């Protein structure tokens, strides 16, 4: 693979990766958010495979494929199932729409998009010294990973639905993984496996929590958790 083409493809994968995070902020429909998240998983996998292919590290390619399966396959599937359970339950009361849409985030969509713009700039500014240490096409894309971490955190902070919180958490994790790939050309296999396992566990826990919440409050608006305080 020629360097030029490699750089192009890497940039493209990074662009898609970042764009997916932005679109998560943009759309309200939870099913669409899950779909976009799956796309982000694919671009992350592509990133890993590209890096591995370029440096002839086949374990990295393996990790990439694994990540692809987990983040574009398993996790979205789990989330979709959770969503399906939610809507099936709610269909009876005719309030399915309110439960499957992020209707009223704490910060409105336009403002969160502008915030995301600033966060991206911040990520670029912060990552600049790191990039200059060792400028390769991969490290040059480092800010993208960092930006996704920040955006994921932002989603976690501002969204109300438990499921979008899960997505926020996963964005955060995707961002960390991407940063690791880009900065060091991949974490050791065993660490990646451990992290992925943790993530899976976390999602399962959150799913259980969501189900419990729904049973307790009839909604997954996490603002209702405040009631626990009383």
């Amino acid at each position, binding site marked *: 693979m020629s360097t030029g083409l490699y750089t192009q493809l890497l940039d493209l994968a990074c662009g898609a990766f970042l764009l997916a995070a932005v679109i998560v902020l943009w759309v309200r429909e939870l099913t669409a958010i899950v779909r976009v998240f799956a796309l982000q998983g694919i671009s992350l996998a592509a990133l890993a495979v590209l890096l591995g292919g370029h440096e002839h590290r086949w374990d990295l390619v393996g990790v990439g494929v694994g990540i692809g399966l987990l983040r574009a396959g398993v996790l979205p599937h789990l989330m979709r199932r959770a969503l399906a359970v939610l809507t099936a339950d709610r269909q009876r009361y005719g309030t399915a729409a309110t439960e499957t849409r992020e209707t009223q985030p704490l910060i409105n969509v*336009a*403002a969160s998009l502008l915030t995301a713009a600033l966060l991206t*700039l911040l990520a*670029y*500014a912060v990552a*600049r010294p790191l990039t200059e240490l060792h400028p390769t096409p991969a490290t040059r894309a480092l800010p993208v990973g960092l930006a996704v971490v920040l955006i994921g955190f932002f989603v976690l902070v501002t969204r109300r639905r438990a499921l979008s919180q899960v997505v926020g958490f996963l964005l955060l994790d995707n961002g960390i993984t991407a940063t690791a790939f880009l900065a060091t050309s991949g974490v050791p296999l065993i660490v990646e496996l451990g992290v992925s396992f943790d993530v899976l566990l976390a999602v399962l826990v959150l799913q259980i929590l969501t189900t419990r919440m729904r049973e307790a409050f009839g909604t997954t608006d996490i603002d209702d958790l405040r009631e626990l305080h009383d």
Partner: protein
Amino acid sequence: MPAGASGDHRRAAESDGAVSVIPAALATATALGGAGALAGCSLPRGMRIPVVGALTAGVGVGGGAVGVAALGGSRWAAALPGVLPLAGTHLAVDALAGLFMAIAGAVVAAVAVYGIGYAAGHGPHGLGSRTAQAVLPLFALTLVLVPVAASVSTFLVLWELMALASLLLVLAEHRERASVRQAGVWYAVMTHLGLVLLLIGFALFAAQAGGETFAALRAGAHTVSPMVRGLVFVLVAAAFTSKAGAVPLHAWLPRAHPEAPSPVSALMSAAMVNLGIYGLVRTGLDLLGGGPAWWWLGLMATGGASAVYGILQAAMASDLKRLLAYSTSENMGLVLIGVGASGLFAAYGDRPLAALALAAALLHVVNHAAFKALLFCAAGSVLRATGLRDLDRLGGLRPRMPVTAGLFALAALGAVALPPGNGFISEWLLLQSLIHGLAVPGVAVAVVLPLSVALIALSAGIAAAVFVKALGVGFFARPRSEQAADAKEAPPLMLAGMGLLGAGCAALALVPGLLGDGLDRAVGAVGLPGSGAVAGGGLKVRLADVSATLSPLWVVAALTAALLLAVGLPRLYGRRRRRANARLWDCGGGAPTPRMAYTATSFAEPLQRVFDDVLAPEQDVNVTPVRESAYLVERVRFQHRVPDRIEHRLYEPVLRALAGAGQASRRLAGGSVHLYLGYGFVGLVVLLLILAVGW
């Protein structure tokens, strides 16, 4: 009296041997200003206004001549040791000073002509009064003279004279409206706070640099420690940006400009605020010789905030002159972005780009002066004809005041920064300098420049909405009040003054190249290489690996040709039917009344909703039910206000704290003489203690 005093020393100035017209023109301007002040004091009312107006116009012409000469390449400097006690007076004219003098002179001359017509129609008070007419020439004179100052003391004296003169003029109509007095208090307090900051900053600078003339400061600047330089810049920049009306120290501007008589508003908005920019460029880039990036980033942030916040407030304003005042804030913000970018590029070592950014900023100062003076004068004509500033009650002025409306439209075209207006040219240049700035390495640059471009674009977009509102609601459609319906066109002298300004706008829009060399020299005066960006009939940006061109004249010609095409071609084809007049389509109901038309407030409503989070409008609905039943409504009162939020959040706490401190200090004053003497004694002892410990 300054006029007489410098008259005595005219010979001292000439003896410096300058062969240019500068000293002569300066002396003439000063003499005319003094004569104008005397005439304003002494002449009877009938003669006072035309004589003072003519003399003031002379001041403007004289100052403008100096400016043009300086832009043409002449330089002049003189020291008049006897004029001011202690320090003496130092004067110098270079191209940078010349540019601002030329602007001030041109604006003063045109506005003075306009002012004759304006003041004549007023009662015994206001602009026609003895005080106002005596102060007006002095104000004009200080506007022209401030850039000539070449030492700290001279500068500060002229600066303060200018502030005092403008304050008196702002207060001219204080008998007619209580709000004038309030505006005067705000203006007085803020301008003097600015003076204090300037005083501290310059005193510090002069002490460290070892001399108070500008030459000494320039020479000694590099010996000053970076921390002190930074402190000096912050202090001075705070004062100068406040004078320029930049957020957050803008609070005086939207009060003082609308409440002043319109010619004075025009002078303040088109000439006085510029001097804030002048001071900033002079001190920051020239005397201090540039500085680290954070100075300029701060300046750009201030500029960006002013640009967007100012134009948003303008979009919400329904008072025509308040709208124009906020638009001044916006334009000065744009200029500050340019000045900041220039300093930033210089800090990173890209001097040609720095020159380009500064040229763009200075060109915008020129353009802004031209269209803003015209806008304020046109607003003044409207005010004089209708007594109204409230856009919600104006309307229908186009057929009643066609010349004023046309000139307002011309100026508004400049203000919206679209071709073929003059504002577009400078904003284009500014955008070019920012877009090409990415070649400068540095994270700060890469983050700040795109944001600056976005802010400029947003402010330009909203500016378009603002001036569509001002023109469309204020001048078009049908009158919304009796006063507007009875409006008459302004008298010829006012139209003449406005016509001069309009010609200036058109010239700047069509052949900005006329300014080219002068602009380069002005940029060169702060030690940057001339950019040659503005030359001939077009604008060229040609740096190491970038280029872009714009020829305004061609754009206008092409637009005209296309317009003829668009009008002509359909006529060739279409069967010529006579144009029919019909009533407005009213959906079949009765004829729509002016009350149904969109007002300025309703026009701005969508924008207000979009920027809800920034503007935080206040709404209040009071429903009064009839006595018998809570369900029957007798009256609904709806109140809507868009307060200046920065003022609300920033100034009110400070004012409250000050008031609290005042209350507390009152407690100290118990009325007992012993107590007061005791304070004095304690103070003395403490002072001695400090001295004893310190030395």
